[in-house]
């Protein structure tokens, strides 16, 4: 095959059996890869009702056809599994060089099933696949694990692993690769921990082949230029990284502050991309094949917060910053480093601490509960100390590391968990920006910004404009973003490439690479199929329309200050229109006609 390697690797950790299967070209064409292919595998093989942390769950590392080529910013892979944080069909997306290396080793995807009797790691060198004892690396942080496994395998091995948080199955544990890149959300690291799988190390010497090299080259050159010419993809992100957004969102009154009690943080400027560039930036970092290089290598010298690493991204700087009322960027960056070292999702980690801070504000928890940590708003030392405790699974930290829903619910106040489907929402207030609220509520993996980033139109005015305060048209806008993103994720391309790269150009690259005569319509239909596949799985897992909602705070408490003062989320105005436009019934269930259109089984 072209684009795809055509081979899927299956590893049963219970029996130690390793097998290879051919990728069905029709499945490849319909589900593309990564999020789409991984979702198809999980839906075909895993009962939606299984305990996510049981051996019956499976963990799929899946690449896309563009992964490993020089299509711009297209080196990504997805971890697809049943996510323990919220029981959705989870697909966590990561960059770095791990995904491409899997392709060069010869695999579109690796399916891990069962559970090892004791800690193990996988060592994949082309055709040679070993399940190795991980006794010596269990307990180590992500950077140390990576170094130890490289020393035992190959100095240039690409390593995806869990840190201590994944080992003790914290619900916000992630899977890290290349030390600093994260398959972050929905607790995929806990699934890896539950299987006693510490790491996957891979080295590949093979190739990704191209159906029409000259046409692919031309399509890639045109696509690159689109990104270079874009104000966000070509200028804003390279210059300031995602952190450029802090001041932009604060100005529209959409920067959730102190666990979403406000949408404006007066000191936000101290935590933004401009401050980061002035104080901490060492250099820009790019994932494999990336031409944007939004990654930030940073260094902090401030006493108590010393370190070197990558980040923070915008979402992290918000979660640990405005959301915790913290304006000390050094503390925020240090907390980010610790999340990467312990292997935790920074959005859920920071937001769960913010939730704990609100419980503290209201006297629901006191220093007696928090092991003496003063969780007052703005306490910069506390966010670092709590992160350490969460990573270690220590005392109150172990509770916070289960995510804000379980934390707040455990104290009888789930209303202080700022989550959609039990997953922490990211850094855009749904009261200030109506469309993103609809996306949080309908996202197939719970609170998430990268399932349908309507912020592009509603705030950044990139590729179009939609008034953030109105609800009209947001159902259609949201669906357009969701379907395009689902298909794009499936190719292995980075969402940020769409700051410049058009859907049509992406399809041109995909078609010339694979040799399938994809059209934009077929591509968007694949996105629609992937979305509905996830929806069907979630419905079978027990989700209903009642789960397509937002925290009461966003629906009832108007923003008290900032440019969007007085606004609430009018989610109820948008959901029925969204269901209808999706071809779903009034209960949010895909109709038979819709399933037939997408060739999906009920």
């Amino acid at each position, binding site marked *: 095959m072209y684009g795809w390697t055509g081979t899927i690797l299956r590893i049963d950790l219970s029996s130690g059996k390793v097998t290879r299967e051919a990728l069905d070209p029709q499945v490849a064409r319909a589900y593309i890869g990564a999020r789409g292919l991984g979702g198809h595998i999980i839906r075909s093989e895993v009962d939606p009702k299984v305990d996510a942390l049981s051996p019956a769950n499976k963990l799929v590392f899946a690449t896309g056809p563009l992964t490993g080529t020089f299509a711009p910013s297209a080196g990504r892979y997805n971890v697809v599994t049943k996510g323990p944080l919220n029981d959705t069909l989870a697909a966590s997306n990561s960059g770095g060089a791990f995904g491409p290396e899997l392709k060069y080793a010869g695999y579109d995807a690796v399916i891990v099933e069962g559970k090892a009797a004791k800690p193990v790691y996988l060592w994949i060198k082309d055709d040679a696949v070993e399940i190795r004892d991980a006794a010596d690396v269990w307990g180590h942080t992500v*950077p140390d694990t*990576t170094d130890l496994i490289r020393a035992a395998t190959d100095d240039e091995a690409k390593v995806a692993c869990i840190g201590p948080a994944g080992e003790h199955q914290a619900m916000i544990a992630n899977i890290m690769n290349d030390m600093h890149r994260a398959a972050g959300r929905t607790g995929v690291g806990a699934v890896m921990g539950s299987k006693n799988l510490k790491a996957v190390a891979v080295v590949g010497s093979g190739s990704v082949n191209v159906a029409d090299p000259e046409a692919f080259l031309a399509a890639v050159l045109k696509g690159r230029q689109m990104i270079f010419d874009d104000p966000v993809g070509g200028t804003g992100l390279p210059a300031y990284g995602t952190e450029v957004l802090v001041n932009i969102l604060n100005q529209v009154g959409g920067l959730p502050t102190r666990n979403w009690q406000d949408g404006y943080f007066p000191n936000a400027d101290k935590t933004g991309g401009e401050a980061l560039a002035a104080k901490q930036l060492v250099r820009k970092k790019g*994932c494999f*094949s990336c031409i944007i*290089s939004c990654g930030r290598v940073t260094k902090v010298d401030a006493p108590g917060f010393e370190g070197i690493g990558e980040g923070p991204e915008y979402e992290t700087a918000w979660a640990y910053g405005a959301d915790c009322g913290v304006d000390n960027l050094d503390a925020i960056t240090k907390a980010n480093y610790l999340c990467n070292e312990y292997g935790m999702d920074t959005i859920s980690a920071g937001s769960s601490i913010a939730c704990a801070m609100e419980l503290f504000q209201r006297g629901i928890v006191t220093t007696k509960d928090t092991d003496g940590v003063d969780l007052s708003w703005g306490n910069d030392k506390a966010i670092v100390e709590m992160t350490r405790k969460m990573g270690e699974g220590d005392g109150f930290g172990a509770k916070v590391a289960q995510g804000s829903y379980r934390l707040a619910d455990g104290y009888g106040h789930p209303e202080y968990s700022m989550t959609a489907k039990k997953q922490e929402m990211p850094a855009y207030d749904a009261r200030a920006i109506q469309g993103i609220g609809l996306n949080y509520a309908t996202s197939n993996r719970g609170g998430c910004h990268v399932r349908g980033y309507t912020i592009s139109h509603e705030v950044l005015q990139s590729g179009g404009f939609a008034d953030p305060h109105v609800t009209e048209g947001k159902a259609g806008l949201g669906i357009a973003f969701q379907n395009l993103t689902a298909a794009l994720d499936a190719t292995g391309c980075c969402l940020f490439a769409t700051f410049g790269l058009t859907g049509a150009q992406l399809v041109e690259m995909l078609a010339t690479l694979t040799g399938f005569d994809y059209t934009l319509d077929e591509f968007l239909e694949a996105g629609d199929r992937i979305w509905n596949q996830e929806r069907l799985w979630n419905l079978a897992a027990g989700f209903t329309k009642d789960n397509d909602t937002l925290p009461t705070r966003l629906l009832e408490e108007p923003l008290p200050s900032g440019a969007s003062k007085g606004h609430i989320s009018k989610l109820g105005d948008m959901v029925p229109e969204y269901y209808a436009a999706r071809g779903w019934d009034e209960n949010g269930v895909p109709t038979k006609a819709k399933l037939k259109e997408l060739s999906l089984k009920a």
Partner: protein
Amino acid sequence: MAKVLMIHPDKCTGCRNCELACSFEHERRFRPGASRVQAFTWEREGISVPMMCQQCDDAACVTVCPTGAMHRSTTTVAMVDWDADKCIRCRMCVIACPFGNARYDAATSSIFKCDNCDGAPQCAAFCPTKALEYVDDTDQVKSRKKAYAAKFKDAFQEVS
């Protein structure tokens, strides 16, 4: 005028577009193992360094080559060329290169070393940050020198 490939590790983001462009130029597929340039990344320090043939004037690979396959270019100044027809694949050049910039590939029975893509190096063309530049030898360090001079300028301005 002689042109040279200049490496600026300080601008390298570790994206490896250079490796992809190189392997695509030579094989019309993506096989970083076939790339004549490799960008190594030290993740703890966040530093990346591209490595490729330095086209040495006094080249060890040329000196040890028993057949003259590895030779100073007769057409391009500042280039070491490899002649596949003369090469007996003894791999003495691989052993001799102190930088590890020549390698034998069993799959294609070839010696991999940078050939400047016959005057249009694709690694430099695809590098998004100009960490690799194909420039006149007279210009090779001008930008770096001036960038450093600017730091002196700023220091002088502060004290004057």
